[in-house]
């Protein structure tokens, strides 16, 4: 068995055993890291693989969250809520993406920023549906059930963690297969030279739209994990500052590596969570550390380790 597979199995085992050894807060943070990882992985399909920088992903995250919350408020079924949230994120991305993917570079970024902020305004103003600035409250953490087949109570944080973990692992596996498939290679081709890909007879717009929709599906999925966890959904999750989170964690972890967004998400939460405990001036420290990390780890933390540290270690090891 290869070292990489062994490490992966150890990591999955570690994740599975967190409820046994971690407290409630560790579980809560682990769920948040998983949510941001899924969100950022979808985002990186756009940035890292397709070469499109979107500042509106928080809008699709929010659509997923609100859709899941509305479902859970009328019909307590976790599975239905998460499916509805994911689909809502994907459908809204498909509709808005149709208008955005005609453009690239800064024009694309500005369009996504505008549409994202439109969703934010909608969440703020459409009180009858979204609850306005107070949002939707009292959302239940409904059981995971298929009537007549099984039902698992999700009121404990541990059970909900397993639910989020398993769905996230499946989502990560799917996107991994996707980026290593001909579809993923085509996206990379579009990122590197869209003219060459176009000359090969491939529709750039269609592939960009597909990438945008998949990123929307992932944002919707990540968003739908939130209402059962927090019991509430409020407009700030649609704000552009929330869209900046996947951008930041992807840059931190590494744009051109698959695991970059996941590593970035872990670092983001750990750094922030530790700093806010000790100082009220956490923003200054947090910003300084992020700048330092981005400057020192050019290309991301993952690239730094795989291209600088690992070769250095292997050079030092004695010959067999």
């Amino acid at each position, binding site marked *: *068995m290869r070292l990489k*597979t062994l490490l992966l199995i150890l990591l999955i085992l570690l994740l*599975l055993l967190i*409820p046994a050894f971690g407290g409630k807060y560790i579980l809560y943070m682990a769920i948040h890291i998983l949510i941001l990882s899924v969100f950022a992985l979808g985002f990186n399909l756009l940035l890292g693989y397709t070469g499109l920088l979107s500042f509106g992903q928080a809008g699709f995250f929010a659509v997923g969250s609100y859709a899941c919350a509305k479902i859970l408020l009328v019909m307590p079924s976790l599975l239905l809520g998460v499916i509805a949230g994911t689909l809502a994120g994907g459908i809204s991305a498909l509709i808005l993406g149709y208008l955005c993917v005609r453009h690239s570079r800064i024009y694309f970024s500005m369009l996504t920023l505008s549409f994202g902020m439109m969703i934010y305004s909608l969440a703020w103003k459409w009180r009858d549906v979204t609850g306005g600035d107070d949002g939707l409250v009292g959302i239940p953490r409904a059981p995971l059930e298929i009537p007549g087949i099984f039902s698992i109570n999700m009121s404990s944080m541990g059970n909900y963690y397993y639910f989020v973990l398993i769905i996230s692992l499946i989502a990560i596996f799917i996107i991994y297969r996707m980026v290593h498939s001909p579809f993923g290679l085509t996206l990379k081709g579009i990122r590197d030279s869209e003219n060459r890909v176009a000359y090969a007879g491939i529709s750039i717009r269609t592939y960009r739209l597909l990438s945008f929709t998949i990123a929307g599906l992932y944002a919707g999925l990540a968003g739908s994990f939130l209402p059962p966890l927090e*019991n509430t959904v409020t407009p700030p999750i649609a704000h552009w500052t929330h869209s900046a989170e996947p951008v930041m964690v992807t840059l931190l972890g590494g744009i051109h590596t698959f695991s970059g967004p996941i590593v970035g998400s872990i670092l983001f939460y750990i750094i922030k*969570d530790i700093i806010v405990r000790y100082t*009220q001036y956490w923003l200054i420290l947090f910003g300084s550390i992020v700048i330092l990390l981005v400057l020192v780890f050019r290309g991301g933390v993952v690239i730094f380790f795989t291209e600088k540290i690992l070769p250095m270690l292997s050079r030092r090891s004695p010959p067999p």
Partner: protein
Amino acid sequence: MAKKITRRNFLKSTVVGGVAAGMGFGSYQITYGQAKKPAGPIKIGGQGAISGAHADYGWQMMAGATLAIEEINAKGGILKRKLELKFMDEELKPATAVKNVRYLATEWGADFLFGVDSSGSAMAIGPVLPEVNRLHFFCHAATHRLTEELVAGKGIKQIFRMVVPVYQDALVAWILKDMPEVKRIAGINCDYEYGYVAWNLFKESIKRFRPDVEFVAAAWAPFWTMDFSSHISAVMAEKPDAIFATPWAGEGVMLLRQSLMFGVFDKIHLWWQAMGGSVDLLEGISREIEGDKFKGKLWGTARYIHNYPVSPENKAFVDAFRKRWGKFPNYSAESSYSSIYAIKTGAEKAKSLETDKVATALEGMELKTPAGPRLIRKEDHQAVYTVPAGRAMKSPDYTIPILGDLRVIPAKDYYRHPPFTPVAATK
């Protein structure tokens, strides 16, 4: 024949085994129950906006609580245990506020929680409190729904609010009762729930005394509005006699300064700045008040004002606060100070720190606080106390402007009372 171990089988076994082990070990996990903690300091966790444009509100909250904790610790603490404070940044984001509550209660081990500036954060925290089972004393968040819906309606007993909610903002109705010259009223309000409810409550109240008044215009300003020129022009086009305004903190300062540029105070009889009695706002318009730019027409209130009541408790608090921090306390400082003393009184009466016992001890209790006697209403855990309305003015007794010419309306007259009927939270 032995079955070959494939990677797929191995992964499958890992996942199933891991979940089973996790669930099994989970039963041996250390729980965070209050009873199991060894006796050390009593931990009090707080949060408020300590970054961004509204950072002074969170700072005041932290300062008020710190002062109370230092005083209590100097006298031996609560139940012979010293108090320890941790204060975190709420960032005015509900998600951050919930994360802070979870961290403070389950990781840091807080026995009690307090603070919170934003109504959205308060409404998000409320439903989480039964899960972490800690009493939370809210010191600002003005939404009436926190106590009316979550406590009186849904029975979340862990919520206590020490500060008067949006009921206070309608107090001008009692002033306009005696101003027959005011017939046309316009509103410049926050374009979110606080603004809608304050405006609707005011309209409801004034109609009881003055059915003849007309509401001629209403302009709505989103959060973070800094240019109010369009709002001012829109309402002044309808020639109002009085203006009811709810933008608060820096936004309130900008609104008032810009209204001076439009010559609004030459054309109206009264301007009601709902939270105009807050220290930060009065400091922001200090020069204009000293120059009598508002011509004595600017009125306001707050959820506590440092020059009322004239009592030994209030004087001691204001003097101690000024000595410790070199500033006057605003309402979030007073409410956090009183929250810490409420914890002390409740725990000492209950002779326990357990959530249920302290909650029961506090219900129906009247506390002596700097803002005057505070009754903790049993039905909704809302503190009932009186804060007057007044005219913004300079006084030789204070280094900053104050609310003077005070009109004291008893709290029972302007508070809403259980059982509650819904208030329209729309424009």
